[in-house]
């Protein structure tokens, strides 16, 4: 259990934070890992702040309590920075990946994030270009993969295509795949 990785996703209802937690977990499972993915259920409504979690480990995961100190935080909506403490429990050597057009440096000074590694990506712009809607979950997965090297992006894209082709039409699938590719190549570091 020493290599247990815990990830917290922040989004707003409708942006796909819960699905993001699951897509990453499904791909990690295909990579031979043990996984958990679960949402933090509150009053569910579009636009309300939502949290979800992914756990990944090379050995079976037994813990069933909430994630309190994730190593990685992914923020799907920059407006959450003003209403919720997205760094809660994130250790000083933790990583935070934020969907915003700002650079990590500008963001750090504006919202006053101390320590931690900050990365940013314009996932909303990418999603609106490729999907015509602000559902930035798949580009944020791609950004996370770029930053962490956790899984091979090609494998995750292939899995997404196979798993979700039943649920979504080809246009949406292809749009998501392009969004992931663009996001993967445009993550900004400090």
């Amino acid at each position: 259990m020493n290599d247990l990785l815990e990830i917290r996703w922040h989004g707003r209802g409708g942006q796909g934070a819960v699905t993001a937690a699951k897509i990453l977990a499904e791909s990690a499972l295909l990579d031979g890992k043990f996984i958990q993915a679960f949402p933090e259920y509150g009053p569910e409504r579009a636009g309300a702040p939502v949290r979800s979690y992914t756990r990944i480990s090379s050995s079976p995961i037994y813990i069933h309590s909430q994630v309190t100190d994730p190593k990685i935080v992914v923020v799907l909506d920059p407006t959450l920075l003003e209403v919720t403490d997205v760094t809660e429990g994130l250790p000083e050597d933790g990583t935070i990946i934020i969907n915003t057009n700002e650079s990590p440096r500008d963001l750090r000074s504006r919202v006053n994030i101390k320590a931690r590694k900050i990365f940013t990506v314009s996932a909303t712009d990418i999603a609106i270009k490729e999907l015509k809607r602000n559902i930035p979950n798949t580009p944020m997965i791609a950004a996370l993969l770029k930053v962490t090297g956790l899984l091979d992006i090609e494998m995750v894209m292939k899995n997404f295509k196979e798993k979700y082709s039943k649920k979504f039409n080809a246009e949406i699938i292809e749009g998501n795949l392009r969004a992931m590719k663009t996001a993967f190549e445009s993550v900004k570091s400090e």
Partner: protein
Amino acid sequence: MSIMANYHALTGNEAVAYAMKQIAPDVVAAYPITPQTSLMQKFSDFVADGDVDTEMILVESEHSAMSACVGAAASGVRTMTATAANGLALMWEIVYIAASSRLPIVMPVVNRALSAPINIHCDHSDAMGARDSGWIQLWSENAQEAYDNTIQAVKIAEDPDVRLPVMVNLDGFVISHGMENVDIYDDKKVKSFIGEYKPLVNLLDLKHPVTIGPLDLQDYYFEHKRQQAEGMMHAQKAIDKVGKEFGASFGREYDIVEGYKLEDADFVIIGLGSTMGTLRMVIDEARKSGMKAGFLKLRVFRPFPKEIVRKHLKGKKAVAVLDRSDSFNAVSGPLYSEITSALYGVADIPVVNYIYGLGGRDTSVSMLHRVVKDTYDISKSGKCDNILNYLGVR
């Protein structure tokens, strides 16, 4: 664990729905209630897609769902439903009728708090309230166990010496909506494991007419209740047998209870469900700091395995019992009462009770550390000054 596991990323509800698809009951009658809804939704998908030929009866309440199940099971077909919390409460009257009519219905219960105030999250109040209804109760620690228990439940319920309905309990949201690795078995192997259903009675068999559930007053009601108790007494043997056969077929053997670092433990934590997973880590930590802790997880709460509990607790210096429901104004929580009853006159061990996690309150590693540390102190002092404790309440 099997070496060639066929892992799928599934939520507990999806895993149980998959088990239902493989079981392919003749009849499923159901009404949706959170957190059971996604289970039945998934199963309905299988029916609608033609993956399973179950006759799905959509009813207008849980009272009707269980009534339809009773009718179907009495007509001699394999029958299932699923519910949670207030849904189980609304079924109440018929839940008893299913058990006393000796109908082998299988019902996953996605454990959730009872209202009021309204709360959709996990605790065990629903199933604990039904503990005297005459249903067998299996409990699951994770999605895999929920899947495995559902398959085994069919065989346990239909055992000719048992003939009783079975509840398969899984913690609401924690297991039902949490995605985990689930090893899914081959359809044909599951089918052959549960076998063909041979009903004992069949209302539609006109050559051998029977009456089920008639008026039964002072003359024979008592004898029929005694027979019902006999069925429950046989259940433990059947559960044990099915657990072993399951191991032989699928590589995961199941016992009535599961011990973790139990044998050489000085003191023992007892509980049910998903929190026991978290407790494994806490016990590992405790061992590192020299506290000889272990746990006893009950997979079966009804019939209550009193002899097994006695055997495992004999010689231990202290016991803590975790109850995820309250039994207002009783001595303590329901599991505590069972454990102390089992120990009465057999072993003089201090036993402490923790009511925890009501309405989905997260049971953190640090809370469980406190339980372990307090129980360690009791094992050293031999004294338990405060039996009833509320863990993590503000």
